[in-house]
């Protein structure tokens, strides 16, 4: 294809590749788990890639981010390297947290990732505190950083969600609450967790802007996130961005994608009609050849990252005690 005919620029192409990076990262984790190499549990974000790419890449390196148990994609897109992510998930010393945190606790402070979380909802208060530290005692004159916190639809039922929106709004903090509404909290559909259609409607009760969007439409996610981030940067206060999306795997590696609480038809519908990668391929107008090439490139990146992780050593038992206290 001649360059002049392209419907996209290099940034868009990179976004597309990044969605593949997340998908293949998550697929590889499932594979490593099934091979008995990867310990612990896994919450994959397969199917939700447009949210991570669309939001995290609008952030600067010095912006702050908190994520939840389904946060591999967010952390990768905030700047973390796949190889050190894999090393963490495999419990190696070369991992971001020396192998002491694992999948649910990856932090990468150099890139502003102040942590993932194994407790549903608990990243929100931490994010309010981090956002408070950005404006504390006149500090806003020297920085225009923002903070983003990711959580699921299930977390919107937690008291902290409401307490935190209340405080963030009252203190006009530079904080964006991002609710990844994948329609289920474990096996419970959102309809059984609350009486409203759109979680972002909750924002109104706290005098905050709330926006609900199709979280699988990458351009829409990017555009909305960019606007809300800019607003927070300029002192416009916090907002709640709800991205409707869908996870393809089971809740964790312990359950099947469908059968108990979701039907195969429902999962197939999202995979064929709503998939963020397929949709973006069309936006970009990529050829089959180009797609094949990109997938191959991504496989190579993942394989090299896994190799690094596999070849790394674990922290020794004598050394672990030094991480209890600072």
């Amino acid at each position, binding site marked *: 294809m001649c360059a002049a005919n392209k419907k996209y620029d290099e940034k868009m192409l990179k976004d597309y590749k990044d969605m593949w990076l997340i998908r293949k990262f998550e697929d590889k984790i499932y594979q490593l788990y099934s091979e008995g190499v990867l310990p612990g549990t896994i919450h994959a974000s397969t199917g939700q890639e447009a949210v991570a790419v669309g939001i995290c890449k609008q952030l600067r390196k010095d912006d702050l981010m908190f994520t939840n148990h389904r946060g591999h994609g967010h952390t990768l897109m905030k700047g973390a390297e796949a190889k050190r992510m894999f090393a963490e998930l495999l419990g190696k010393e070369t991992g971001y947290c020396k192998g002491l945190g694992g999948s649910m606790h990856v932090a990468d402070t150099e890139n502003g990732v102040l942590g993932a979380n194994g407790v549903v909802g608990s990243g929100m208060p931490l994010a309010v*505190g981090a*956002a408070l530290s950005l404006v504390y005692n006149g500090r806003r004159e020297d920085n225009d950083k923002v903070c983003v916190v990711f959580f699921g639809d299930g977390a919107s039922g937690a008291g902290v969600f409401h307490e935190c929106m209340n405080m963030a709004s009252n203190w006009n903090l530079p904080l964006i609450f991002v609710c990844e509404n994948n329609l289920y909290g474990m096996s419970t559909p959102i309809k059984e967790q609350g009486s409203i259609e759109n979680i972002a409607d909750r924002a109104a009760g706290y005098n905050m802007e709330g926006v609900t969007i199709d979280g699988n439409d990458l351009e829409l996610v990017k555009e909305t996130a960019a606007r809300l981030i800019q607003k927070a940067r300029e002192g416009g206060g916090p907002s709640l961005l709800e991205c409707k999306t869908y996870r393809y795997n089971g809740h964790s590696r312990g359950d099947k994608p469908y059968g108990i609480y979701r039907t195969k038809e429902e999962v197939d519908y999202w995979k064929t009609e709503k998939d963020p990668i397929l949709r973006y391929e069309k936006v970009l107008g990529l050829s089959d050849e180009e797609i094949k090439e990109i997938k191959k490139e991504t496989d190579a990146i993942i394989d090299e990252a896994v190799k690094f992780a596999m070849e790394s050593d674990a922290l020794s038992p004598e050394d672990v005690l030094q991480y209890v206290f*600072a």
Partner: protein
Amino acid sequence: MRTITYLQAVREAMEEEMERDEKVFVIGLDVGTGLTFGVTTGMIDKFGKERVIDTPIAELSVAGVATGAALNGLRPVMEVMLQDFITLCMEQITNQASKARLMTGGQLKAPVVFRAPGGWFGSFAAQHSQSLEAWFAHIPGLKVIAPSTPAEAKALLKAAIRDDNPVAFFEHKKLFGRTGEVSEYGEDYVIEIGKADIKREGTDVSIITYSNMIWEAMDAAEELAKEGISCEVLDLRTISPMDREAICETVKKTGKVVVAEEGVETGGVGAEVTAIIADEVYAYLDAPVKRVACPMIPIPFNPDLERFVVPNKDNIIDAVREVING
């Protein structure tokens, strides 16, 4: 030397640290007015609303806000109105603040202090009178302090604020009015966390206790001295990490031990002290260790019944006689 109350000591510690370090701030319910006990009264006039931060009544989230601010470099002191209400903060203290260091492989630290007055106060009833220190001693990554004198309250709170780790700092409501001499060395007057202190030297029996129970023990020792029984009173001061060495030293000296606390007996601080003795200096014991603690009952409202369940000097005297007479 100058004489001040325990309450003033706590306030002075915070004020001096806030003057020394701009990153230190106070956050909590009604801290602006200090309406609860008056600990923070007047601080807002010196430091302003930016550093004496009133919050909504949302203890769990506020504990997270303080922790999140600490993760991003500030040094918050959260005032929890009463120790009973710190139960609402347990998630953030236990799972977030105390684990941040290890989970992130040393990337993050959480220098946050949770101040919470505990203990009985005179018919404040079951939900306003508890001593829950033992809960917190069970959390790795958290330091737990409960001082008994104004000078130690000041010096240990300053140490807590300067410590790079989360610290639970428990005052006793009945101690707020107690007066004592404090050093006027100013900002350098700190006591190392984790060190017990002999409040009264003795040779026959060791009474090991802390916080307000120290004064019951001192009165008991005074009375017993009249009968020719010489009691050593050891003030733990720090509940975690516990000063095992000081405990073992006093046991080696007297061979007889009474461990006293205001909290309930089962799984209590005294249980831990007793276990340390059994582990390390069992051979030095001349009699079984006797525990004095609250029975397993919520504190009743009726003043006579309250006095009946909360341990006091008489219970300590009885226990000492028991270990002496066998």
